[in-house]
């Protein structure tokens, strides 16, 4: 028994007792299950597993604290309405919000933050980390940290653009189908059904074989494949709106279809569509990363998280975790967006009831 293990279990059990004494049921349950898991892990894996658990808990606690202080700061800074909104935010949502802001800052100010250029070779292959290169070098000796920062710009930027295109196409088609009805609705519906009968990743691979890999092709192919899902939602939401009396009134006034779609239907469909945008962004982002990981998406030397994982994957078999950092960056962003979308959906559903 090392000092670390003694201190670890002593602290954990003390925390357990405190929770029990003050009747914090949730905390007690969590802490006690942690004690059980640690005992098991300590017996099986030894001290290293316990150290990993400690690091994980510390990280979790730090992010929870960060999220809490961020939320409270926002409540103080924001004007009345914003502050009221933030008060309802769970910690997960404020954590997501904070991370999204960090990603945006990294993407916008990439040339200022990154110490080196995205394709600049500055050291030997797989150079170990030092004071200048915080995360070390990649397989060609480029600075991993700089590429990570530029990746925020490239990967997220391309994913955003793709989602926007898919969204404009899907929403316009969906709303028009609902407003116009008749054979246009039928034809669009059948096209969408067929597009959705093929798994997206497979279809993307087929189309990319044919048109070849480039950023523009990638954007268009993914946008084409993800717009049917948006079409369906827009069609369903608008289907409920077009039967309203005020639409009938606008029709009788003799307004054009375009006016009906933009001025009457769209404003009433914004909330579900906004949540859908967040969710679709996640899927599009994951799809683009997956294709880049397979070597068929964003092409080198552009810094991109998916292809960075692929390029440095050999390091993993030596127990290095640096190649996982870009993958973690992808996961963190999608989790953050999901947290925020969850909260938004909760608010919009709560207001309806």
């Amino acid at each position, binding site marked *: 028994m090392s000092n670390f293990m003694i201190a670890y279990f002593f602290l954990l059990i003390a925390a357990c007792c405190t929770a029990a004494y003050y009747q914090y049921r*949730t905390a007690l*349950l*969590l802490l006690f299950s942690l004690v059980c898991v640690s005992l098991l892990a300590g017996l099986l*894996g030894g001290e*290293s597993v316990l150290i990993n658990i400690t690091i994980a808990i510390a990280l979790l606690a730090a992010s929870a604290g960060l999220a809490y202080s961020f939320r409270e700061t926002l409540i103080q800074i924001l004007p009345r309405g914003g502050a009221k909104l933030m008060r309802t935010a769970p910690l*997960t949502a404020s954590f997501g919000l904070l991370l999204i802001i960090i990603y945006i800052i990294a993407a916008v100010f990439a040339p200022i933050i990154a110490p080196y250029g995205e394709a600049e070779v500055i050291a030997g292959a797989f150079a170990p980390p030092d004071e200048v290169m915080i995360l070390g070098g990649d397989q060609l000796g480029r600075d991993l940290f700089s590429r990570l920062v530029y990746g925020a710009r490239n990967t997220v930027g391309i994913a955003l653009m793709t989602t926007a295109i898919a969204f404009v196409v899907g929403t316009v088609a969906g709303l028009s189908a609902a407003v116009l009805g008749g054979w246009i609705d039928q034809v669009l519906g059948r096209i969408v*059904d*067929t597009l959705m*009968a*093929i*798994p997206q*990743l*497979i*279809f993307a*691979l*087929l*189309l*990319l*074989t*044919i048109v070849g890999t480039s950023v523009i092709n990638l954007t268009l192919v993914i946008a084409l494949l993800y717009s049917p899902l948006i079409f369906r939602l827009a069609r369903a939401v608008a289907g409920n709106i077009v039967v309203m009396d005020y639409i009938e009134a606008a029709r009788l006034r003799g307004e054009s279809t375009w006016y009906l779609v933009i001025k009457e239907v769209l404003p009433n469909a914004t909330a579900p569509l906004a949540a859908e945008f967040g969710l679709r962004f*996640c899927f599009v982002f*994951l799809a683009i*990363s*997956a294709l880049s*990981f*397979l*070597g*068929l998406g964003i092409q080198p030397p552009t810094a991109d998280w*998916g292809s960075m*994982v692929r390029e440095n*994957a050999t390091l*993993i*078999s*030596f*127990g290095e*975790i640096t*190649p*996982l950092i870009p*993958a*973690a960056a*992808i*996961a963190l962003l*999608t*989790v953050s967006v*999901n*947290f925020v979308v*969850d909260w938004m959906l909760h608010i919009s559903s709560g207001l309806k009831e």
Partner: protein
Amino acid sequence: MSGVMGLIVKRLGLGLVTLLVVSIIIFGAVEMLPGDLAQQILGQSATEETVAQLREDLGLNRPAFVRYFEWLGGAVQGDFGVSLANNRSVAEQLAPRFANTLFLAGLAAVIAVPLAIGLGVMAALYRNSVFDRVANVVSLGAISSPEFFLGYILIVFLAVQNQVFPAISNVSGDMDFGTRLYRSMLPALTMTLVVTAYMMRMTRAAIINLLASPYIEMARLKGVSRSQVITRHALPNALAPIINVVALNLAYLITGVVLVEVVFVYPGVGQLLVDSVTKRDFPVVQACCLVFAATFILFNLIADVGAILSNPRLRHPK
């Protein structure tokens, strides 16, 4: 009963039509190449004569619909033509790999389905408790992570730091079941993580949705215990959405293997597809896409039929 059979036959017919349309898309997509296939294979520098010769060899001079029906007729009989890269029969390369992919997906499903339904029922039973919240955050994390991230994390922890399972799953046909199971454990676990998270959330949502209905309140009021309410009253009615989710996720398992197979160098259809896309080996890409699409459509069909069978109201649509 004849009404049910009629409905199922109708769905089957619809599935076949969808598959036919999909096959037209897969075939037509290659037809839409700038120039044509022969030009694409030989590249810019080829002379007119060699292109014409290759066009003759591949039979590209005949009209597209004739070649489509030949291709489709071959595909139905299990003949997908010859690979452009190595001149071997596509079906020969595809068959053992498809068996491998099915094995991997089956293994993942055997682990994931009971786990997901159990966890989902637990989460619904103890909703808003610590367990529910932790399960919610963890499953959201698993869904949000790219498959290759989860795969590499498993490699780091279970193959490199503690050598429990091998990092590279090189299975072959002549292996006995135990070794095969051992070698394909890590990719199966990776897929289990993703699929379990989805199915668990859906199961939980389906049950919680039902818990709001009046007959559940009635059961509570007459003094049925919490777990009995869920297992005896809610679960049978939640079966339809759960069957649906399971079938859709099995479809995902078969098609979503592409990334996992690449991470673990598992010899399945996904790996073959990615390799062929890089080599622009069109017959193989077409065959893989058709196989994946057919499986996908089949599982969607099963989801539909399952929903019809488990919900009497769907049998008599108004």
